[in-house]
């Protein structure tokens, strides 16, 4: 099974394709994304483009290379080309507001995929409940930590994303919300800035771990930083699987293939899962419904409740996580 068919089956492709491909005229959809740097974006891009193409729609792709101004110009280009609808993965919440406004001013329906605008009242906004998902993952490792460490405060560390991105803010909020009920059992968390950049995260985490090596629990705001964490912890003898002395409890968020593999290997204990398939399907269905109905300014927030995949529920929920589906398909071997 190829990644594409895996993704399509994950999307419930038979029903979805039928819904997208019949009854409505083939639409021209502009898909503007900010980059394809992480597994989540790669898989999301593939799911959206292949599903639309399979359904007979035309996809105009625009990659902004992490440049908000370029993305705005690309969206304007798409509008000038007369596209029927736009799906955008914006650079950040602020530029998303401007882009949504631009599209709506020009009577083009627009859906924002996964990275919500600072103001979610405009456009179709498909977004994971980052705070709740993060809290579920963090709560699991917090419980583990409290069971293991009883004679001193537990030292947690959070790698935060770019706080201009509402996703990053929600994940940080979820982390703190999960630890709050346990009061002084946890020391003040150490915050490491990543700005969603692996090199920045590496430099900051190196400095932090050198200064404070007694870290019991790490939460990364995105799974794509696990390789970075490994490169910092491994030389210090802190990259140890569950059940062995020196294991640092670890949780993330996204649900990518790397996280799935690391949970199986015991290095990572939990990850919050965004339901990529649900999000892609919701975005496509909503934008195509708006196009078919001739609705120029559809406004709707579609929430992805998500869940946490943990070492405890791995056996039951593994295949609910998109990263594990990709992993089973050999994604990391390609």
């Amino acid at each position, binding site marked *: 099974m190829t990644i594409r068919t895996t993704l399509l089956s994950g999307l419930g492709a038979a029903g979805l394709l039928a819904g997208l491909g019949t009854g409505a005229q083939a639409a021209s959809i502009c898909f503007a994304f900010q980059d394809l740097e992480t597994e989540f974006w790669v898989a999301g891009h593939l799911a959206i483009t292949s599903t639309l193409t399979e359904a007979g729609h035309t996809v*105009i792709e625009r990659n902004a290379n992490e*440049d908000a*101004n370029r993305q705005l110009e690309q969206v304007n280009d798409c509008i000038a080309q007369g596209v029927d609808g736009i799906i955008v993965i914006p650079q950040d919440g602020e530029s998303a507001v401007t882009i949504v406004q631009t599209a709506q001013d020009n009577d083009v329906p627009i859906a924002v995929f996964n990275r919500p605008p600072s103001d979610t009242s405009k456009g179709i906004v498909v977004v994971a409940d980052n705070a709740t998902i993060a809290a579920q993952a963090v709560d699991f490792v917090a419980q583990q930590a409290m069971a293991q460490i009883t004679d001193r405060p537990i030292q947690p560390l959070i790698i935060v994303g770019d706080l201009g991105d509402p996703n990053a803010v929600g994940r940080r909020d979820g982390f703190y919300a999960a630890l709050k009920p346990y009061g002084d059992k946890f020391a003040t968390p150490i915050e490491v800035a990543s700005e969603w950049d692996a090199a920045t995260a590496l430099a900051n985490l190196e400095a932090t771990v050198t200064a404070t090596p007694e870290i019991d629990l790490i939460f990364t705001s995105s799974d794509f930083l696990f390789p970075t964490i490994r490169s910092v912890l491994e030389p210090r003898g802190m990259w140890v699987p569950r059940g062995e002395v020196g294991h640092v409890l670890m949780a993330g968020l996204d649900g990518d293939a790397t996280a799935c593999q690391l949970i199986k290997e015991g290095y990572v204990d939990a990850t919050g899962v965004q339901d990529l398939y649900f999000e892609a399907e919701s975005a496509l269905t909503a934008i195509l419904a708006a196009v078919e109905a001739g609705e120029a300014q559809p406004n709707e927030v579609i929430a992805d409740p998500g869940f946490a995949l943990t070492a405890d529920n791995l056996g039951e929920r593994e295949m609910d996580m998109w990263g594990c589906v990709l992993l089973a398909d050999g994604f990391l071997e390609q």
Partner: protein
Amino acid sequence: MTTSVGPTPPIGNPPAASPLRRVLVRALLSDWFVLWLSLAYFAVLVPFLPTLALPANLANLLSNAWPLLVVALGQTFVMTIGGIDLSQGAVIGLTSTLGAALIATAGPPEVLSKAPIWGLLISEGGGVVAGQVWLGVLAMLIAGALVGLVNGTLIAWLSMPPFMVTLVSMITIGAFAIWLTQSENIRNLPEGYVALGKGDLVSIYLGDKDRSDIPRRELHTLIGQAAVIATALAVALHLLLERTAFGRQVVAVGANRRAAEIAGVPVKRTIVLVFVLSALCATVGALLYSARLEAGRPTLGEGSFLLDVIGATVIGGTSLFGGKGRVIWTVFGVIFFVLLSNSLNLMNLSSFHIDMVKGGVILAAALLDVARTQVLRGST
């Protein structure tokens, strides 16, 4: 001081030159070469990409050109003295952030409370001069000018290479801008500021006359506030370069610094002023970019932005070797560069392919510069 600002010294045709060669040489050295090239490129592509000629697309082309032109004008002066300014992108990030912080009408504490500027320049009620657009713009210009002053002073008085000085500026100023807000963007800009980047002055509608409701997407901006700002700046800098002693000094410094010194040109002062001018142009670019994006952004001007600025300037014909540069060339260079980007987008090429093509075109422009220089040497 006898150095000519003009682009084309009299061309002496060697006796053996064929008519075709003479035409080619004249075309190559013409002020209008890049404009003809742009028109030819447009005419060739339109049958295959009819979208290119749609009014909406032409309006997009213009709106994309204005901020790039403003920044490229500053780079034109720097290149004319034989330098390069790599710090323009960082100046854009710094000044857009600073200006936005000062004039924002509100500051969300959940986003900005950990930023060093919180409570100093901006708080929940907005910036310290919230809503006062012109005070914010003035502060931006002062900050930009200071960066240019430091760059120019180091280059002129310590004889440091412009590449190295502005590279260091790019890194430090860029990091400083990100530190100021801890990488956060600043929204809630006053409407008057946003209008500077997005405001319409003249719009056109080409549809049926008897329609009572004209859809917004069929109204195309012909002249916006950004167009007025960019055009006014271009005219002013054109006059400065072509009609003033300072302009002639800029060309003289680029043509031969030693000779200019001997001729009494205040070389160091000229260099400093040129780098201040470049930073001021970048600041005006920051104004236009942040206004159209409706946010001050410390990362504005990062990435491949400098490729666009330097590319447009070089394509226009400003010499990489110094001593040759005209504002009108840069105007044509920006038109060609924006047209190239737009057409490659319309061909649905990936961003990687687009950047590769842009790089190739800039290389071709640099080779053209070498060829022009050789032709000029051979003909004088």
